[in-house]
């Protein structure tokens, strides 16, 4: 297809670029992405941190695989760490020690890998909280929220499989706990345990199997999910916070080239730098102190990695026996007695079902209750969705109580209180905490919304005290500029939608429940200030209204 005006690149770089372009259509991609707009906000960084820590995990993890040997064969350590020289241990543990002591920079890479893993799960979690509290999961991004939830589960799976690999005393006891939980599963638990460990615990297969999961299956799934996640971000374009100039039909922000690429690209190096700093100065998982796995010893005050804490804490909170009533139920069947290990099953399953279940279903619940099927590209400020924010905080408290319970022994020793009392209080908080959190958060949100209304109607406090001719003191209030005002008034406040009859004129049971939920969520609400209200407030007080003991009322 030669035409008279065929492009000839002048420079060598230009010719190479042209060569590639003619074969892959690079110009199209540059046109699509070169100036694509991304909104800017600090809270959008968490997802980036998650992505970057994952890249760092791949880099440091690849380095570690060159030296790690996942064999559980017995060996005698002869490396350079004196206290363990001659001790019988598995090859996996010995090679982990070799990475730490006999590979230059190996210890540093182990530290980088472990710290990145902790930060990876943390940033995924915080990113999800940001998405939840701002309502970014709403249409059209529901499926991307589900992908994100899967990524959270996968990141915990990656963390746990990796945690167990060094085959040290601490991780071995962690595996034993997993074995105990698996054995509690009715009907199939005993077999799953036997299949997982290749026989009886600990066997000699588990490390190799976890290694395969850790370096191949789980990262491959994470990569796949990350690809889907980012693809959908491109399809949807990013959400943006409400503000002047930002509408449901546009994206306001910086273009990828050069500003966003520079900021986001530079941020990768900052994340890497911070992890390097932490890894250089703060030891994590000093496996040489723990010794090789042995089923008999255990050290007191041990903690799992933070992201497993909530499961471990739930196990601790559950009472096994109340008085003479045991939660291990012996069920008589015609063929003999079977045991339903509720004291392990309930804490292992119920919190996970509640938290993950709510995480994956909340978006459908909210859509159903609000009957809101529109697309949302403008985020909610958390205070402007009091019901959602309250539910989120209740979930966070539910999680945090279990998480704190994983340190119940350390709480007891550090604060000199009885271990049993810590457990009793946490058991109370397990049930009461989320309820209190829900109520308090909703009230706080409503109060903050009222404050916003107040600021819009009466202006901001100028910090200038004036004395009136009568001698009364008051603070001057200055009106907002239209940009700041728009930020405070441009939100939607959901109204109660009572149960509606269907086409046949019946109000179904499900619709009644929806109506009741809608009333529960939206009965107390604060509407944004309307221009009419503002005009009325100005008429009362003059534009620079002086607040004189009189508080703005809702709908005033």
């Amino acid at each position: 297809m030669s035409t008279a005006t065929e492009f000839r690149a002048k420079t060598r770089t230009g010719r190479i670029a042209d060569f590639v372009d003619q074969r892959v259509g690079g110009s199209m991609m540059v046109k699509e992405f070169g100036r694509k707009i991304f909104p800017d906000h600090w809270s959008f960084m968490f997802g980036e941190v998650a992505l970057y820590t994952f890249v760092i995990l791949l880099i440091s993890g690849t380095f570690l695989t060159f030296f790690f040997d996942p064999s559980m064969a017995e060996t005698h350590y002869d490396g350079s760490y004196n206290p363990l020289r001659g001790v019988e241990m598995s090859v996996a543990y010995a090679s982990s020690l070799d990475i730490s002591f006999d590979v230059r920079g190996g210890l540093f890479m182990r530290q980088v890998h472990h710290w990145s893993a902790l930060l990876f799960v943390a940033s995924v979690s915080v990113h999800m909280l940001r998405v939840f509290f701002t309502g970014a999961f709403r249409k059209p991004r529901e499926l991307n929220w589900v992908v994100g939830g899967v990524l959270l589960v996968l990141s915990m799976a990656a963390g746990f499989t990796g945690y167990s690999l060094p085959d040290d005393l601490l991780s071995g006891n962690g595996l034993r706990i997993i074995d105990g939980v698996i054995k509690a599963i009715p009907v199939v638990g005993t077999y799953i345990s036997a299949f997982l460990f290749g026989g009886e615990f600990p066997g000699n297969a588990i490390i190799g199997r976890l290694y395969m999961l850790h370096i191949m299956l789980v990262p491959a799934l994470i990569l796949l999910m990350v690809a889907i996640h980012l693809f959908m971000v491109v399809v949807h374009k990013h959400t943006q916070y409400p503000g002047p100039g930002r509408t449901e039909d546009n994206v306001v922000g910086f273009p990828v080239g050069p500003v966003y690429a520079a900021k986001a690209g530079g941020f990768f190096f900052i994340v890497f730098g911070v992890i390097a700093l932490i890894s250089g100065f703060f030891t994590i998982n000093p496996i040489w102190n723990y010794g090789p796995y042995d089923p008999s010893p255990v050290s007191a005050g041990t903690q799992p990695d933070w992201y497993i804490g909530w499961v471990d804490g739930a196990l601790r909170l559950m009472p096994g026996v109340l008085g003479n009533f045991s939660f291990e139920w012996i069920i008589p069947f015609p063929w003999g007695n079977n045991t339903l290990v509720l004291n392990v099953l309930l804490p292992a399953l119920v919190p996970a079902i509640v938290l993950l279940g709510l995480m994956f279903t909340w978006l459908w619940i909210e859509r159903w209750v609000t009957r809101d099927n529109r697309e949302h590209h403008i985020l909610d400020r958390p205070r402007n969705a009091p019901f959602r924010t309250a539910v989120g905080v209740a979930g966070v408290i539910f999680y945090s109580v279990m998480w704190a319970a994983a340190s119940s022994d350390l709480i007891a020793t550090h604060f000199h209180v009885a271990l049993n009392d810590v457990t009793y209080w946490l058991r109370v908080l397990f049930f009461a905490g989320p309820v209190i959190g829900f109520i308090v958060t909703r009230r706080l949100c409503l109060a903050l919304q009222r404050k916003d209304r107040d600021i819009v109607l009466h202006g901001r406090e100028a910090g200038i005290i004036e004395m009136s001719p009568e001698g009364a003191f008051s603070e001057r209030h200055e009106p907002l500029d239209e940009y700041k005002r728009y930020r405070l008034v441009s939100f939607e406040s959901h109204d109660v939608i009572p149960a509606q009859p269907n086409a046949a004129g019946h109000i179904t049971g499900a619709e009644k429940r929806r109506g009741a939920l809608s009333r529960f969520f939206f009965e107390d609400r604060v509407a944004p200030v309307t221009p009419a209200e503002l005009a009325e407030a100005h008429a009362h007080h003059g534009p620079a209204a002086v607040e004189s003991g009189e508080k703005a009322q809702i709908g005033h």
Partner: protein
Amino acid sequence: MGDHSHGGPNDSGTVAKAGPASLEKFQDPGLPPHRKRLADTYPRAEKRAERQVAWLFVISIIGTLSFFIAYFVIGRTDSISALRTQNMLLGLGTAFAMLGIGVGIVHWAKTLMPDHEVSESRHEIRPEADRQDAAKIIGDVIEETGIKRRPLIRNTVIGAIALAPIPAIFMFRDLDRTGASANQIVDRLRYTMWDKDVKLVRDPSGTPIKASDVQIGSVFHVIPEGLSEAEHPLNEKAKAVVLLMRLDPSKMNISPGRENWHYNGIVAYSKICTHVGCPVALYEQQTHHLLCPCHQSTFDLTQECKVIFGPAGHALPQLPITVDSEGFLVAQSDFTEPVGPSYWERG
């Protein structure tokens, strides 16, 4: 993409007004006017920012070089303190190398690249016309396969595809490398190495224990004699570890049938927690409580290790013991119930 309105740094890019003014909703005032930065106005500030960015990159270069100093000067070492210093310097070098680049680029972007926000319009994710086209294509494709008209083909292909993956599930049966049958998998959880006349020996030294050596208040971590010669020592140890303690017999509440399981107040209990299998490693001499450090299950030794606190669901199994002719402690038999965590078939 439409309205990328990039102008110079003086151009705010968009003034999107949303609809006419009303009494119900405030009018969108559009993007606030762009505020210039120092570097936009003063050439000296611009120069200064440029120098700062360059210095940050120089710091990164220094960081990279110091990594090599830590790597080669300290080198490979047997000394723990030198290793710690090396790890710290490697971290510091890498941190400077990375933070120099990162902070440098971000500073560059924030001070010297255009900082006016621009607007881009969103597009419908699924235009209705596309949906109709797609629906027609899918309809045509299904029609051309004829799958609706040929139920015989449809049913057989569904059947074949549903069956084909099932062998893959059975392939995993040999994950249990011992070759045990289903019954053996369940059964082996009931048995440990303990048996009649197996000596109680110290863990890990393997020396036998004379009954006269066990004082009131003392505690021994015990394994069965011959453990290290077992086929799978760790597997056996994971079930067979025992705690040996001595109590004043008057403090013991002994249930019928267990009267002769102790020897002069010396009792042996499984060390494996009945909750999820951690070693119950803590013994409080004063209260005679055993505490599991993992999940704080607490067992009362005076009540045959009944659960008095925490998540465990049943008492620690007791190992019946006695002494042999030389006065060494030996087991009377295996445990009479499975040790460790409960499972479905435990009964």
